C-alpha cells in the first residue's frame, strides 16, 4: 500500500539526506530509515524517505519469470 517508487541514489548529502533520480527527475530525500546505501543503489521512496533498497537481481529474476510464464504452452495438462 502507499505510493512508493523505486529511484536511484545519485548523490549522498549531509545528515541522512540523499538525492535520488527517477528518469531524470531529481529529488532530495532522507535515508534515515535505511543503512549502507551507496550511490548507484536503487531505493523505494515513500513520502520523502527511502524505505528499503531494491534488489536488482531479484527484480531481474521476477521479470524473467514473467517472460517465461508468458511462453508456456497452452496445454490443458498444465494444472
Amino acid at each position: 500500500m502507499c505510493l512508493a517508487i523505486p529511484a536511484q541514489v545519485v548523490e549522498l548529502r549531509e545528515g541522512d539526506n540523499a538525492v535520488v533520480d527517477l528518469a531524470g527527475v531529481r529529488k532530495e530525500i532522507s535515508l534515515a530509515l535505511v543503512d549502507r546505501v551507496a550511490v548507484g543503489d536503487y531505493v523505494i521512496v515513500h513520502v520523502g524517505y527511502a524505505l528499503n533498497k531494491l534488489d536488482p537481481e531479484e527484480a531481474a529474476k521476477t521479470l524473467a519469470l514473467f517472460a517465461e510464464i508468458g511462453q508456456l504452452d497452452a496445454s490443458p495438462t498444465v494444472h
Partner: protein
Amino acid sequence: MKYIDEFRDGALAQGLSEAIRREAKPERHYHFMEFCGGHTHAISRYGVTDLLPGNVEMIHGPGCPVCVLPIGRVDQAIRLALENDVILCAYGDCLRVPASGGLSLLRAKATGGDIRMVYSSADAVELARKHPDRQVVFFAIGFETTTPPTAVAIKQAAALGLKNFSVLCCHVLTPPAMMAILNAPERIAIEGFVGPAHVSTVIGSRPYEPFAQQYGKPVVIAGFEPLDVLQAIRMLIRQVNDGRAEVENEFTRAVDRDGNRKAQALVDEVFELRETFEWRGLGVLPHSALRLRPAFAEFDAELRFASEYQAVDDHKSCECAAILRGLKRPVECKLFGNVCTPENPVGSCMVSSEGACAAHYTYGRYRDA
C-alpha cells in the same frame, strides 16, 4: 523509468493473463481480497480486471488509511486548526474526507483554518522550525509504511528541541485489520489475500504467517505494479488449487521475511500500542493502532491540546463499513454515483483514489452502464 515500466509491460501482462486463464479451474470461483488500497488503485487504473477470467474476482479490502479513518478523527484535526489556531499539516489524501458539520479539512481551510498540505513529515518539522511563534500539528495517518517517517520526524523535533511541534497520531496496523476481516461474523468467501507491497517492505512477510497457519488462507505479497498483481493472483490460484495455505512473496525485489529492522526499531522507540482504536468500517479493534510513548509525550497533540476523540456515526445510508469489509460492492450502496460522488463524497471510500468507491467511480463505472 527503471523498475517501473518493465512491470507494466502489456505483452508480459497478456502472457500472465493467459496463464491465469489456464490455471483457474473453470468449475471453481476464486475470491481474493487485495488488502491494500494501492493495489485497488492499480487494478482499476490499469484495467487489470479485464485480464482476469470471469471466475476470478477481486474483493477490495480496507487497506486504505484514509478510508478507515473515522469521522471523529478528522473532526479532531479540524478542531485543532479552527479552535486551537495551530498550523495543521496533512497529507493530500485526507484533505477532502467529509467530517462533521459539512466540513472537511479543505473546507475548514476555506473558512480560515491554517491547514497546509505536506508531502513529507519532514516538511511539518520544517514549518515548526520556521514559525517558532506558532504551534504546528502533524496529522499522522497511514499504515506501517508511513509510520517510520513520522517516527523520524518526531525524533528530529526532539533533537532540535522544538517546543511547538506535535503529532496527532492515527497510525494503524495491517495484521489486526486482516484479522478483523477473517474474524468477521458474516461469512464472506475469501480464498486468499493479496498482501500489501510497501507495508511489507517495512514489516516483512513474517507477520502474515499466522493467517495462513491459523485461518488456512494463502497470502501472496505483491509488488505495486500491475504485473506484480497479476502474478500474485496466479500464485494464489495455484495455492488454492493445490490446497496449500502459505505466505508467499511475489515482491522479492523489495520484501524479505524480516522487513526493515531499522525502521521497525525506530517505530518501536517512539510509539506504543493503543489498547483500542476505532476504525471506520471495522469497529473498535484492540491493539490495532499506535500512540506516542510517554518518553515522547510532549509531542503528542492529544495531550498537548487536551484533544479528545469523539465517535461520530457515518451517514446512515453510507455503506463504507460494509464495503471496507468486502461485504458489499460500491454499486450496492444507495448513495453511490448519485448523492455520493468524488466531487461530493459522503463517505471516505469515495474520497481517496484508493477507496473502492472512488476507484470504481473514477475508472470503472462504465462497466455498470
